[in-house]
């Protein structure tokens, strides 16, 4: 089998880390302190990229799951798994930062906001997706099951978002939404942070995919050794 070794994975990870570090300068020195919320608003610059790339991860799971079923190539499944792991990690961090933000902005840790609830529901579904790995079945079957769940889970995302919004529009809105135009400096910092996180995200995804490829490769080598041992 081919073990895909992406030669630029370390470079991507290093570049992502460097860009993220650089983005801190933009966040703390360049972008102004928000008037109402004060310094706590800086959380936004880490929260937004996490949310965005978390969602992109789940979209990658969706696309790779379809590809895995259509093309019957297990490599897509490994990409999907890598993306799901990163998606869950990012969504967890996104929820944590979001709750700190919410506590400060709205005075509560949690509220029935469409975005919040969508993130939480997705977190639950994709954690379950990762637990599928522990199903005591053959890898072939696990792959089919995982791909199916990967597709169904993403179909649910717009439905969750829509229903949470309808739910809220029927009930009185307790908390004003956090919108309002961003100042240009803030916008620039936010965009830069998102792009920096994107580079890091891609590096992470390729790194994890390579690891999964190599794990399978090692398993095969071990099996061949075992086989040779049996013959002698």
């Amino acid at each position, binding site marked *: 089998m081919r073990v895909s070794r992406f030669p630029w994975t370390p470079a991507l990870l290093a570049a992502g880390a460097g860009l993220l570090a650089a983005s801190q300068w933009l966040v703390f020195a360049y972008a102004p302190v928000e008037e109402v919320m004060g310094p706590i608003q800086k959380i936004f610059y880490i929260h937004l990229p996490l949310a965005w790339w978390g969602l992109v991860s789940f979209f990658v799971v969706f696309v790779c799951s379809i590809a895995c079923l259509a093309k*019957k190539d297990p490599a897509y499944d490994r990409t999907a798994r890598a993306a799901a792991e990163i998606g869950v990690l990012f969504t967890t961090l996104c929820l944590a930062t979001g709750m700190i933000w919410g506590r400060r902005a709205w005075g509560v840790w949690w509220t029935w906001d469409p975005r919040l609830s969508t993130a939480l529901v997705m977190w639950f579904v994709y954690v379950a997706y990762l637990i599928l790995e522990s199903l005591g079945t*053959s*890898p*072939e079957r696990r792959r089919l099951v995982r791909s199916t769940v990967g597709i169904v889970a993403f179909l649910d995302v717009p439905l969750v978002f829509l229903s949470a919004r309808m739910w809220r529009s029927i009930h009185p809105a307790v908390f004003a939404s956090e919108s309002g135009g961003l100042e240009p400096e803030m916008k620039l910092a936010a965009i830069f942070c998102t792009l920096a996180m994107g580079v890091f995200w891609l590096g992470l995804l390729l790194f994890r995919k390579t690891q999964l490829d190599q794990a*399978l490769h090692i*398993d*095969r080598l*071990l*099996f061949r050794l075992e*086989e040779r041992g049996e013959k002698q």
Partner: protein
Amino acid sequence: MIALMHVAKTFGARLILRDCTAEFNEGTVSLLTGENGAGKSTLLRIIAGLSQPSSGHISFAPEDPSIGFLGHQTFLYPALTALENLAFWQKAHGLPADESTLLGMLEHVNLARHAHERAGVFSRGMAQRLSLARVLLQRPDVLLLDEPGTGLDQASQAMLEEEILKARKRGATIVCVSHNLERARALADCVWRIRDRRLELEEAGS
């Protein structure tokens, strides 16, 4: 005819079968042998289309044959009666399920007296006979047998062999996995053996 072309099967990192190429002809009985865990049942499942080969392919001529499968798993619902079991499987295959046909078949496999008893109380041999009835009703083009004689007494064994020969006569393709080599060899037109995860023709048809 069933043709296997370079069929291989892996479970994750484990290679179960490699480069299996074979032909099974209409109106013949092919015996499939090999040590325990050699991959006989896996190969039979692949032929049945229950398991996808990791590489290579299988072709049938004529295409889309009806496949009958008789293994140590009986496919019977323990909470349904013998008659209900047969009726369900007939309907599942889109075949007529009128009671007189089904009762006739139960008579044939010596279970007429037990038609209204639940399959769950049947002995191993009775369940296997009911399972045989299920397959016979289908009159399949391809008959796949995985240790079909398990739990059958002498008389039922003889009946099973007779049915296999009847199926061969009407032109069915029969592939049989069996340990009971003496009996099975007497029936078989050719014998295939799985050795070192490969399929070898041990005895060609006479």
